[in-house]
């Protein structure tokens, strides 16, 4: 068990990981786009301080 716990790789085959990876990536991109890049005025004003602090181009 100790070797499994410290392993840096995942033994699960790619086919079993792919769906989760795609869903996770798309969801993450959607969120980061909304927080950091969307031109929606409501999103911009709500996220304003975070955008500046994070280094997103803001204005």
């Amino acid at each position, binding site marked *: 068990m100790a070797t499994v716990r410290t392993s840096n790789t995942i033994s699960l085959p790619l086919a079993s*990981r792919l769906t989760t990876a795609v869903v996770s*990536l798309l969801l993450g991109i959607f969120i980061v786009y909304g927080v950091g890049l969307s031109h929606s005025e409501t999103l911009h004003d709500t996220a304003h301080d975070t955008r500046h602090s*994070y280094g997103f181009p803001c204005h």
Partner: protein
Amino acid sequence: MLVKYLLATIIAGLFAGILLTPAMYVKTVPLILHAEEYENAGGEGHSHEAPAATTEAAPAVAPHEHGQEAGPELPLGRFGNTLLINLVAGAGFALITGAAALFLGRRITLQNGIYWGLAGFFIFNFAPAFSLAPELPAMPAADLATRQAWWLITVVLTAGGVYLIVLRDEIWAKLVGVVLIVAPHVYGAPEAEDLASAVPPTLASEFAVSTLATNLFFWVVLGTALGWAIQNYASSELDA
């Protein structure tokens, strides 16, 4: 679908987002508020939106300025909004990092989590900031969409570069990786035509360093939390 894995990444992201908020309030938000005094005093202000984005009939709409009128932001107060957005952003960056690890067949652990965090910091913060310094309100800047495009391209190229350098053994891969990371800076970030600013340079430089410090903190927490959460909640799925 590896549901536990997804939940573990989201939990780690929320945790890092919570911790980012006080760090921002100590280091960066006071500088943003300070800069907004110059923004409002400048009279000219800045337009928040590209003109095309607002189709309001009123001609010559006064530029929206921070802190003086209620904007269309969510009604949680400035702190509440920032906390909410940090939680959401934390989850977003955590999901992207978790997805990258899944694609690559790599496991984020408590031990190596800090390296995943440092990679995220380098990709999302340090590399873009190297040529496009974090801006304060009221600072001059080039066209927003152009800067956003440069930011996005830089992040994608840097991510590719980091992968080639860190996870590939071939010499050609490492060389291509360096080229990918350097290319957007050789090309150059969009710059404002007129650099004159009402914001004192000292404030701006202090802000640039403060954002990098808070974001480094955020990413180190996120990487470590990802390793911890995945190891504790999702390892049964990954060992299957």
